[in-house]
């Protein structure tokens, strides 16, 4: 090769990256730099002025930090009411909110499948940036890897989040006790059914839209009104039933919930009836359960209902004893049964 040879230094990579993700986009070279600059930094900015250094740094003040991480592998990538990008922000923001934390910073790790369209990636990243702005959090560090075609599912995202818990706030299953009221922040099952019906091409009447939303402002409002919050849990995989069982076991308490008071919209109930699914086990991405002392329960419901994301908040039961870690459901007929954990995923039935 002579000085005059017109060979690009990036050869044998294609001169134009085209409109799909290629393995070289994760290879550490120019294509990767371009992707970071054109897609990620363009959308997320560089809020801590890290100048694309290996990590983000910031000063800490006094207080308690909350730290969480979650990975997102939803299919389809875009669904009514959200996409994997907004979900990856809401999910991690909500995990922080359930600790009573004010969410501040997120990391974003992407695993991209070769062949993914750049337009889809841009759409997801833009949506993620918008969700972060809406939630008042900054995405301050990130990573991208590309895997061979067929070894991923378009986009996988991991987000980790850091938030600050106000002084004196302790929220966790260890504080749950007999006499606590159990509140849910809204109607159940929309996210799971929206994603399932989109993925499987089920044409349910009415538009079922995911409930994916940030919840930290509702929690902050409860704390601002001096509501004593004993425990919070977002109702993601496994739904309300799994969250109640996890907390009952961790706290060693018995709970009673009333089927009649659990909010489930008609179209969700209908879809679940058709598919043989139980809405109490269906995933939500913008709903939580709260354990609040009886004396604060009614006020807490009223505060929650002031927020759009919790306007269907309901009191659904209470903690009734110290034994056994069981959840008892009083059915709509007035009979009683156990609301147990599922053994695996709910599978649609035969007929």
């Amino acid at each position, binding site marked *: 090769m002579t000085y005059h040879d017109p060979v690009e230094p990036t050869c044998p990579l294609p001169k134009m990256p085209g409109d799909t993700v290629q393995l070289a986009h994760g290879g550490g070279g120019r294509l990767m730099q371009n992707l970071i600059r054109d897609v990620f930094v363009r959308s997320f900015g560089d809020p801590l002025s890290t100048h694309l250094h290996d990590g983000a740094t910031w000063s800490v003040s006094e207080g308690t930090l909350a730290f969480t991480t979650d990975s997102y592998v939803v299919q389809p990538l875009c669904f009514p009411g959200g996409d994997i990008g907004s979900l990856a922000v809401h999910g991690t923001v909500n995990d922080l909110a359930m600790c009573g934390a004010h969410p501040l910073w997120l990391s974003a790790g992407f695993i991209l499948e070769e062949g993914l369209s750049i337009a889809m990636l841009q759409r997801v990243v833009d949506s993620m940036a918008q969700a972060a702005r809406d939630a008042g959090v900054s995405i301050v560090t990130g990573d991208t890897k590309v895997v061979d075609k067929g070894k991923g599912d378009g986009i996988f995202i991991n987000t980790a989040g850091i938030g600050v818990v106000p002084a004196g706030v302790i929220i966790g299953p260890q504080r749950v006790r007999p006499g606590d009221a159990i509140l849910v922040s809204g109607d159940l099952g929309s996210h799971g059914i929206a994603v399932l019906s989109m993925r499987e091409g089920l044409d349910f009447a009415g538009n079922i839209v995911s409930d994916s939303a940030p919840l930290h402002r509702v929690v902050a409002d409860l704390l601002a009104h001096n509501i004593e919050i004993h425990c919070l849990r977002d109702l993601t995989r496994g739904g309300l039933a799994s969250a109640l069982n996890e907390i009952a076991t961790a706290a060693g308490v018995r709970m009673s919930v009333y089927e009649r008071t659990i909010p489930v919209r008609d179209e969700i109930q209908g879809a679940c009836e058709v598919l043989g699914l139980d809405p109490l086990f269906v995933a939500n991405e913008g709903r939580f359960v709260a354990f609040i002392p009886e004396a604060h329960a009614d006020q807490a419901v009223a505060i929650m209902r002031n927020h759009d994301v919790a306007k269907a908040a309901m009191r659904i039961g209470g903690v009734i004893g110290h034994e056994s870690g069981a959840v008892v459901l009083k059915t709509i*007929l*007035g009979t009683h049964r156990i609301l147990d954990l599922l053994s695996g995923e709910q*599978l649609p039935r035969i007929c």
Partner: protein
Amino acid sequence: MKYVDEFRDRDHAETLAKAITAMATKPWTIMEVCGGQTHSIVRFCLDELLPKTVKLVHGPGCPVCVTPVALIDQAIRLASIPRVTLCTFGDMLRVPGSHQDLFAAKAGGGDVRIIYSPLDALRLAQSLPDREIVCFAVGFETTAPAFAMAVQQAQNMGLQNFSLLVAHVLVPPAMEAMLSAPGCRVQGFLAAGHVCTVMGYEEYEPLAARYRVPIVVTGFEPVDILEGVLMVVTQLEEGRSVVENQYARSVHRLGNRQAQSLVADVFEPASRTWRGIGAIPLSGLTLNLSYARFDAAQRFQENLMDCDTEGIDDSACQSGLILQGLRKPNDCEAFGTRCTPERPLGAPMVSSEGACAAYYRYRGQAMHKK
């Protein structure tokens, strides 16, 4: 929600329960045939509302549970063929075959896909012309018309890559087998509403007359089931044994003639082994000669040649007794201990219509053992 709320009405349910209590002067044993009814009974704890004199026993109406091990083994074998995509309803995935289940076959690299309707599999066959799409045709008379329609459409479209592994079973021959067995203690039946929506209930009339047993076609909601029980108890107390229809909002005596003619065009009755129960003459369906080329068992004969024709069932599983109402799930020694949904010994623990699954799910750890 319309068509649900009114049939889950607490006042109506309590009124019916009181009427049953007032009507039942003697102990009666009633079998609900369908697993969907069993789940409703256990989910809403309807037995809490019934008097001690009226005992409900659970019947064989779980198609997943009665699908013979040998057919599950065949489905697993088909899924392992590289060019085959096996389509199945979701609740077949966890049912144990001789050595593994379809989940394990999927994890082992088999292309196993959950479908919601046989027509989903047909669409897949159109979109993947290079693959063989085999659909596991499981179910009672309820699902048979949709599979028949899929086969007819495949024929009309000239699809060469679509076939069925047929495991269809029929309700009346099974009821007759139970009634004619020595030691049968079932005195009245709640017949399966959805099966009768397709087939009507004319074919149950000779059974009711011959075995002097009341049969009430019944729906699936709590009020339906309590009303069905009241109708059976009333007949028993009055010494009558006829077929009555509680589920009139869905079922007519002659059923859905169009669906029946679809089934008759594509399938013909055949003897079938019921898992845990044994062979029952003419209790299943098979593709008839005109549609034999859609039969996966024939198309893949060479691949299936060394599959055991019987299959190996876990001898500790008492599914046969459970499915004939001779035992309750929590009477079984293995229930909740050696047999759980995570490690099932038999199908009733994992099918969405299985009685053991219903007891495990709705009665919880504390009640897993009596």
